[in-house]
C-alpha cells in the first residue's frame, strides 16, 4: 500500500468522525449545573436560618456539597450523572470532590500510601497547582495596582 500522507489522512478522519452533540451537552450542563448551584444556595439559606452568619454559611455550604459529591461518588452514582451532565457536574465543587475520591477508590488495592494517597490528586492535582499559582500571581498584581 502507498504511504499515507498524515495531513491528508487527518483531514479525511476529521471529516468522518461523528460530531459531539454540543447543543444537547450545553443544555444538560446548564440544567444539572444550575440545579447543583441552586441546591447550594438552598443549603446556604437553610444554615443561615439556623443562626449561622453569612461568612460561616459560606464555609458550611462547600463542606456539605463536598461531602455529598464524595458520598455519591462512593455509591457509584456521580459518574452516571456526569455521563449526561458533563461540565454541569464537573465544574461545581461536587465535581472536584468526585475527581479526588474516584482515584482514591480506584487505587485502594495498591495500598494506602502509594495507592490512595499518591493517586488521590492525580486528576485534581493540576487544578490545585495552577489554581494556587494563578491566585498568587493575581494577588501580586492586585497588590501593586491597589
Amino acid at each position, binding site marked *: *500500500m502507498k504511504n499515507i500522507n498524515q495531513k491528508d*489522512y487527518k483531514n479525511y478522519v476529521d471529516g468522518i*468522525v461523528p460530531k459531539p452533540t454540543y447543543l444537547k451537552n450545553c443544555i444538560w450542563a446548564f440544567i444539572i449545573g444550575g440545579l447543583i448551584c441552586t441546591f447550594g444556595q438552598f443549603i446556604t439559606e437553610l444554615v443561615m436560618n439556623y443562626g449561622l452568619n453569612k461568612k460561616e454559611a459560606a464555609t458550611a455550604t462547600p463542606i456539605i456539597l463536598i461531602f455529598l459529591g464524595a458520598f455519591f461518588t462512593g455509591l457509584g452514582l456521580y459518574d452516571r450523572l456526569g455521563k449526561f451532565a*458533563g461540565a454541569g457536574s464537573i465544574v461545581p465543587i461536587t465535581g472536584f470532590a468526585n475527581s479526588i475520591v*474516584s482515584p482514591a477508590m*480506584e487505587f485502594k488495592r495498591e495500598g494506602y500510601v502509594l495507592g490512595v494517597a499518591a493517586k488521590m490528586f492525580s*486528576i485534581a492535582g493540576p487544578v490545585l497547582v495552577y489554581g494556587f499559582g494563578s491566585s498568587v500571581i493575581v494577588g501580586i498584581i492586585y497588590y501593586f495596582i491597589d
Partner: protein
Amino acid sequence: MAIKKLGSQTILFKNPPSIIATGSIVGPKEGEGPLKNYYDVILNDDLKNEKSWEKCESKMQIDAINTALNKSNLTEKDIDYLFAGDLLNQIISSGFAARKLAIPFFGLYGACSTMTESLSLGAMAVDGGFADKVICVTSSHFSTAERQFRYPLELGNQRALTTQWTVTGSGAAILSSEDKGPFITHVTTGKVVDPGIKDVNNMGAAMAPAAADTIVQHFKDSGFKIDDYDLIITGDLATIGKGIALDLIKKEGFDITSIYTDCGIEIFDNKKQDTHSGGSGCGCSAVVFTGYIYKEMLEGNVNRVLLVSTGALHSPTSVQQGESVPGIAHAITISNKKD
C-alpha cells in the same frame, strides 16, 4: 531457504495446524451482547471473587485455557508451548496465568493484535515441527485497561463518541499437528503503519491503515481472490475504523464490502449497550474468534475466514509525550480445508 514464504509478508503452511478446541470466557456486559450464545462461560460480575481486576483477568486466561483443555481431553502436560499476551504493563495477566500452568511460556505483546500474533507464532511452531500441541491465548478487561490507559471508573466525565469499550474476556485456542480442522493455512504478518493520529479516543482511525495494508498485502501475496473467503473480520476497528479500512482497501482495487465486518462491531449492540464506536482490546478478537467464528466454522456456516487482529502500539507515556499512535495488524487464514 524460506520455502514456506509467499510474496513479501505471507507464509503458506505445508502441514497446516488444526485448531482442535477453543475456550472463551467473557464479562457480564459482553454476555448481554449479540454473541452471548456462543461463549463457553459468562461471568456474573467482573471481579469473579478475586481481590483485584488484574487477578480476575489472569484467572480468566486460566479458565479459558482449562475450558479448551477439557474440551479436547488434554492436560497441561500434553501442551508444548503457551503463547500468551494481554494489554497490561509487563503483560502480567499472561505471566501470572502461566505461573499457575506447567507449560513452557512465550509472552507476547502486540496490543490488541496479540490474538493473531499468538496464533501466527503458535502455528509456525507446529508447522515447523517444533511442537505437536500449543495453546494461544489473550485477554483484556475493561476495568484494568481503563485504569491503566484512561481514568478512574467513578470519575464523572463524558466519553467521546469515537471511543471504544475494552472487552472483558479471554479466548484460548489449542493448535495441533494432527486433526480434522479447522486449519490455519496462511499467516500474513503486518508492518507497523503510523498514520499520525494523536487522539487516543480514536483508535479505529489509528489502526485502520495498518489493517488495510495487511489485508491488501495478504491478497497480493497469497493469490486468493475475494470470493475465496466467506468472511474477512478485523479485530477492533469498530464503526469508524471499519469505514476507513473499507475505503483504503477499495482504493487499492479490492472491494471486500460484502464479506467484511469487525469483531468490535459484532460483540456489542452499540446503541443498546452504550459502547459508542464498538468493542476493543486483546479479548475482543479473542472471544469473537474462539466463541463465534470457530463454532460457525465447525457448523460449516463459514469455511474460510481471514482474521485480522488490530493493535495500537502506544502507551500512556508516549501519548503524554506527544507521540502519535502507530497501528499494527496481523492476518491469519483459517479454513475448513487444508489447501
